[in-house]
C-alpha cells in the first residue's frame, strides 16, 4: 500500500516475473530516500567486507614507526599516502576500517542467525502449542529478560576469554528472547486464520502447519526485527571490543580501534573519530532500512511517521 507515486504503480504491474519484482522492490525503496541510502550503504559495506583483503590499500596490521600518527590527507600535515591518516603504530586507518567491517558484519550475521533461529523456533512452539510448554518457554524468556545481561556477558567473557567466537556466543545467549516474544505474538494472531485451520482440518502434521503455513506469514515482522537486532548487535560488539572484552588484536574491530584511539584523543582526533563514524553510519543505515520495511509492510505505521492529513483515516 506504500505505492502512491505513479512510478511505483508502474513498477508493481509486472510483479509476476522475477525481474519485474526486483524493479518494483527498487522503485518502492527509491520512494523512501532514507531507506534507499541505508540499503545502498549496507550493500557497499557488505561488498567491502567480503572483498576486504583485495581492496585494502595497506595490510591493516602492517606497522611503520616512521609513519605513526599521521593526520588525514586533507589536513595541513596529512599525506595522500594515508587518506584517513595512521594510528599509533603507523597502521593505515582506512585499511583498518575496511577490515573492521568484516568483523562487524560477521558477528552481526552470526548472532542474528543463531539467536534468531533459536528464538523463532521457541516462539513458534510456544505460540502454536500453547498450554504448559508455552508457559514454560515464556517464563524462561521473562526471567532472562530481567537478567542484568551485560554484566553476565562480562563474567562469561572474562572466564572463557574474549574472542570473536565468544562474543558471538554471549550475544546470542543474550538476544534470542526478543525473537521468541515477537514470533509467539504473531503466531497467536495468525493461528485462528482460516488457512491455518484449513490446513489442520485436512490433516497436515503440526510441523508442516508451523513451517509451511504459519512461518511465511511472519516474514514481514521478523525481517524488520532481524534488521533492528543486527544494528543492536553491531553496537554491542563495538561496546564489548571497546571495553577490551570483545575482539582481540591482531584482529581488527571498529570498537577496538576506538579504544586504541582513546589513548591519543588529546593529539590525534582522527583515531577515535573515524571508526565511530563507521559504526554510526552502519547502525543508522540498518535503522533506516528497518523503518522503511516497517512502513512498507504496515501501512498504519506510515501514517504515524509522515502523518500529514492521513492520520485520521488510520485512526478512526
Amino acid at each position, binding site marked *: 500500500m506504500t505505492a502512491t507515486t505513479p512510478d511505483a504503480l508502474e513498477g508493481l504491474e509486472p510483479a509476476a516475473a522475477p525481474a519485474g519484482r526486483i524493479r518494483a522492490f527498487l522503485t518502492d525503496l527509491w520512494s523512501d530516500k532514507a531507506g534507499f541510502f541505508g540499503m545502498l550503504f549496507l550493500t557497499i559495506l557488505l561488498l567491502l567486507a567480503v572483498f576486504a583483503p583485495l581492496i585494502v590499500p595497506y595490510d591493516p596490521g602492517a606497522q611503520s614507526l616512521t609513519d605513526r600518527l599521521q593526520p588525514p590527507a586533507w589536513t595541513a600535515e596529512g599525506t595522500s599516502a594515508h587518506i584517513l591518516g595512521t594510528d599509533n603504530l603507523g597502521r593505515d586507518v582506512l585499511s583498518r576500517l575496511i577490515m573492521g567491517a568484516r568483523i562487524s558484519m560477521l558477528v552481526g550475521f552470526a548472532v542474528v542467525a543463531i539467536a534468531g533461529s533459536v528464538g523463532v523456533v521457541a516462539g513458534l512452539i510456544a505460540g502454536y502449542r500453547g498450554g504448559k510448554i508455552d508457559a514454560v518457554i515464556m517464563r524462561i524468556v*521473562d*526471567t*532472562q529478560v*530481567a*537478567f*542484568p*545481561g*551485560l*554484566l*553476565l556477558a*562480562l*563474567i*562469561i567473557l*572474562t*572466564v*572463557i576469554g574474549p574472542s570473536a567466537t565468544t562474543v558471538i556466543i554471549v550475544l546470542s545467549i543474550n538476544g534470542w528472547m526478543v525473537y521468541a516474544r515477537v514470533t509467539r505474538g504473531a503466531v497467536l494472531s495468525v493461528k485462528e486464520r482460516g488457512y491455518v485451520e484449513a490446513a489442520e482440518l485436512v490433516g497436515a502434521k503440526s510441523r508442516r502447519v508451523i513451517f509451511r503455513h504459519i512461518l511465511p506469514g511472519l516474514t514481514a515482522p521478523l525481517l524488520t526485527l532481524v534488521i533492528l537486532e543486527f*544494528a543492536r548487535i553491531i*553496537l554491542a560488539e*563495538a*561496546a564489548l571490543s*571497546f*571495553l*577490551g*572484552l570483545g575482539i582481540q588484536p591482531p584482529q581488527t574491530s571498529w*570498537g577496538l580501534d*576506538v579504544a586504541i*584511539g*582513546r589513548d591519543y*584523543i*588529546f593529539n590525534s*582526533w582522527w583515531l*577515535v*573519530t573515524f*571508526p*565511530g563514524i563507521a*559504526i*554510526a*553510519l552502519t*547502525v*543508522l543505515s540498518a*535503522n*533506516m532500512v528497518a*523503518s522503511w520495511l516497517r512502513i512498507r509492510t504496515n501501512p498504519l505505521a506510515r501514517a*504515524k*511517521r*509522515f*502523518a*500529514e492529513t492521513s*492520520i*485520521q483515516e488510520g*485512526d*478512526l
Partner: protein
Amino acid sequence: MGRFALQRVLQGLVVIVGVTIVVFVVTRLIGDPVALMLPLEATAEERAAFAGALGLDEPIIVQFFEFVRGAVRLDFGESLWQGRPAFEIILEVLPRTVMLVLAGLGLAFVLAVPVGIFAARRPGSWVDRSLVGGSLLGLSVPQFWLGLMLILLFGVTLKWLPTSGSGTFLHLVLPALTLALPAFGRLTMMVRSSMIDELHAAYIETARAKGMPEWRTVFVHAFRNASNPVATLTGWELIRAIAGYSVVVETVFAWPGIGFMAIQAIQQQDLILLQAIVFVVAVIVVIVNLALDFVYKLIDPRIQFV
C-alpha cells in the same frame, strides 16, 4: 493485590537465584577460578592453599549455599584486589552510579516530554521531521563514542569541562549528558507517537469543542493517557542504565561508580568482587522492577492486578 505482589516478589527471587546459578556455573564449572585469580607462575601448593582459603575446593553445591548464606547477610567475602570486604567497596561506589543515572535520565525525561509533545502537535512539519531524524541518528551512535566525541569537543578543543574522574558538579556534566542523549531520543519518539494517538482520539475533540484551553487539553487530558507507554519506557531506560549503559559511560569518563568498578574488577582478575557486583546489581534491578509495577498502577488505574 496481595496475591499480585507476592507473585511478583517470587518472580524477582527466581531472577536473583537464576543469576546466581549462572554466575556459579560460569565461574566454577566452565572456568577455573583459581587459575583465573592467581598468577600463571603460582605453584601447586599455592593453588591448593588459595583454593582452601576461599573454600574453592568444596563441591560446587556447598560453595553455592555458602555464597547464598553470605549474601543474605551482605557478606560477599573480601576483594582480592583491595583486601577489604567486597560489599564495603560496592557501598562506596554505588551512590555515584545512582547520582549519574538519576542526573542523566532526569535530564532526558525533562527534555523529552515537552519536545515530544511539541513534535506530536505538528506531525510532518520540518521541526517534527528533523526531530525524528535527529532521534534516529542519536539511536545509531555508539554511546562510548558519543562520550569520546563530547570529550573531544568540550574537554580537548574548548577546554570547558573536565574529561574524567568525579568530585565536582562539572565532572558530572559530560557523563550525564552521554547517558542522557540516546535515552532522550528514545523517550522523545515514544512521547511523540503516543501523543499522536491520543490527540486524534474522540475525547480530545470533545474537550476542544466545549472550549477547553488548548494547554489543558494537551498537557492534562492527552498526556495523562499517553503517559503509560512513556512510563514503561522510562522504567526500561532506568534498568538499562543501572545494569548496562553505566558500565560503558563510567568507563569512558573514569567515573568511579559500580560499572567502572566491574570493569576494574575484571582487569584485576578479582572474581570475588565481580560476582558480588553482579549479584547486587541483579537485586537492584529486581527491586526497581517491583517498584515500577506499582508506579505504573499509580499512573494508570486501568491496569488491573491479577
